[in-house]
């Protein structure tokens, strides 16, 4: 083990070939490893999105190809009252349903965060509305809202005798709109509640203990500790929730199909209605493309509006 012995040892490692060196070169390696993911994204995301945008500028119909018509589809939509009703209701639906989901979801999360008997079982039950396939819950609501066979009407009229006539949930504009929002809120609460519950559990109990020692009221503990520390996850969950709600399709399509007289069409259902059953593929694509600015705006709003450090830690903007 002397120094002399180690100098006597001769390095026999061969120089790697050019191919091995090429692949060991970091930029190449990075490129190769990214290739499958890029390919997947290009084929399954970029191509359909690009095709959709392209279709929006043509006059394609089902069964025949189309030619480039520029902004003609958008010009038609701009003066189409049905389209503007759909835009209005999409925004309204998203706004009201999101507020409802977050108010109730946060409340539920706070309740579940307490020590309760059968905690895990309760949490599992809470998730049920969300894991039920949307179409199934939509059909259930369709029955609940049925003009002749609604369980709600039955209880109010035939059991409690509070009303004389059955409620016409879906027969006129505003009742139909509120009914759909109620169904969407019911479906969306578990997602919000479980995500926020996860957020709540990351908040260290020592903060609450310290606040208790300082004599903070429960409301103060909620506004000064829970809300700020929950804000990062709230921003993410809200972004997702807004996107899911804005692009909702199944509930509306299964319950009202956009009726009565188009008053409950969301942009997604209108796009499908025009594009597939209506055969006007290009116009449907144009409506779908019109959703993109709204989604980008909603995403940016929640990100920049709620993910700011000032909100979270009370510091200045940076």
């Amino acid at each position: 083990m002397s120094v002399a012995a180690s100098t006597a040892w001769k390095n026999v490692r061969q120089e790697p070939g050019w191919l091995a060196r090429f692949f060991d070169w970091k930029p190449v390696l990075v490129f190769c490893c990214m290739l499958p993911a890029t390919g997947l994204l290009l084929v399954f995301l970029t191509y359909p999105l690009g095709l959709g945008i392209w279709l929006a500028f043509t006059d394609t119909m089902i069964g025949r190809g189309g030619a480039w018509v520029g902004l003609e589809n958008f010009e038609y939509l701009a003066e189409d009252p049905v389209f503007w009703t759909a835009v209005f209701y999409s925004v309204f639906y998203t706004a009201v349903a999101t507020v409802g989901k977050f108010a109730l979801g946060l409340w539920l999360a706070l309740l579940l965060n307490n020590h309760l008997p059968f905690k895990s079982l309760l949490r599992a039950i809470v998730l049920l509305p969300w894991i039920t396939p949307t179409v199934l819950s939509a059909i259930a609501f369709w029955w609940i809202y049925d003009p002749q066979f609604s369980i709600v009407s039955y209880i109010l009229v035939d059991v409690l005798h509070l009303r004389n006539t059955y409620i016409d949930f879906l027969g006129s504009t505003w009742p139909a709109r509120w009914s759909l929002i109620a169904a969407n809120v019911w479906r969306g609460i578990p997602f919000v509640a479980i995500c926020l519950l996860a957020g709540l559990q990351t908040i260290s109990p020592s903060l609450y203990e310290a606040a208790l020692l300082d004599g903070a009221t429960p409301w103060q503990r909620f506004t000064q500790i829970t809300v700020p520390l929950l804000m990062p996850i709230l921003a993410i969950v809200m972004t997702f929730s807004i996107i899911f709600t804005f692009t909702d399709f199944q509930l509306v399509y299964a319950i009202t199909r956009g009726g009565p007289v188009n008053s409950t069409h969301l942009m997604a259902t209108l796009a499908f209605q025009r594009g597939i059953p209506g055969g006007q593929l290009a116009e449907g694509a144009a409506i779908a493309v019109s959703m993109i600015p709204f989604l980008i705006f909603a995403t940016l709003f929640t990100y920049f509006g709620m993910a700011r450090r000032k909100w979270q830690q009370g510091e200045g903007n940076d």
Partner: protein
Amino acid sequence: MHIIRRRTALGLGAGALAAAMARESAAQIPVADATLKLPIESGASLRILRPARFVEPDEVIFRENTQRFQQQTGVQVRVDFVGWEDIRAQTAVTANTGSGPDVVLGWAEDPHIFVDKLVELSDVAEYLGKRYGGWKFLGEKFGKKNGSNNWIGIPFGGTAGPIVYRESAVKAAGYDAIPTEHDKYLDLCRKLKAAGKPAGFTLGNAVGDGNGYANWLVWSHGGFLVDEDGKVAINSKQTIEALKYAAELQKTFVPGTLSWSDVSNNRAYSAQECFLTANGVSLYFSLKNDPATAAIAADTNHAPLPKGLAPSPPQSALTINAMLFKHSRYPNAAKSYLAFMMEREQYDPWLQKCLGYWAHPLNAYDKSPVWESDPKITGFRDSMNNRYWNGWKGPINQAAASSTAEYVMVQMCAAVAAGQQTPEAAAREAERRAKRYYRG
């Protein structure tokens, strides 16, 4: 694909027995001499796509008939049933990609939409027409390419939606039959409402029933969506009259009809919430087969939609129309299959077991025992002789299909019936929307 259990096998056996009896009576259908020479390609196999059944025997007998074709010709045939909502989308994919099923039994307009991708079927249609006493009006209308004698589709049958009513309720209102004049019909509906046995027609987004009712409103007042050349003509005095009438009639309906879908009126009628509506024979069929509702069926009858100002009852028939795609590798086998399915040995049992659900498009089947089996369904015999179609009086094309699918007529009527728009504004809006589809 199918696991046949013992019980199913028994059921199939009973079904087969009944079908065998139906096959014997097929000899009652008169035929003329005609021949169709189509050498079937060797090693041929076929894929067929058709809408899902609405009444059970539709699928059972259809499969059985296909099985017979397979046995007699050795051609392997696979039949897929898809939902009514999905079949047009799947037909479109088949047409655009040039692959998939050889034959699609789609909706009436579909061969006209995909005409460039189809094989002409004049030989089959002319053979069938000659052998079975000619095609009925809608058979010819939906089968032939616009303004030509070239057949692009083989209509298999159609289901009309006449008035379905409770005889006792109508009688109690002082009418022996459904009146054909607008004012008397309105009076009948008012009296039914007063008796607590209201009528109900949907103006919701219901493809079949909604369009059927809205079309009737406009057609029976002499209005029409487009003229013979496909020029939009909905914004007319007749339409305004129809819309005013719709608003009056709406007041007599059971509540909630504006949100009714295609099945809602069946349910409301079966639950005795609604006593007069319009529907295919399927409603009567289900009432009759269920012991719990057999009493309702006994009190039920059918009548054509009131004529109003129209020369004949303004109703169409929801038709299934077969088309053969150019990409098929075995066109002769496919044509033989279509002809085989329309022959009396196959077609008549199908017609009988479905209780005339898909009423026949070929005149000779007027003699089918099914139409005498129950006097209450005799009226469906002439379903395919109705003189109207969606997009009447215009050509059958994509624009007509789009206007139907987009509920242009339905929503025009619904907006007025709900009191959201004046008749004039609603007609203008319908004109604007229709022009979009009929832009040429």
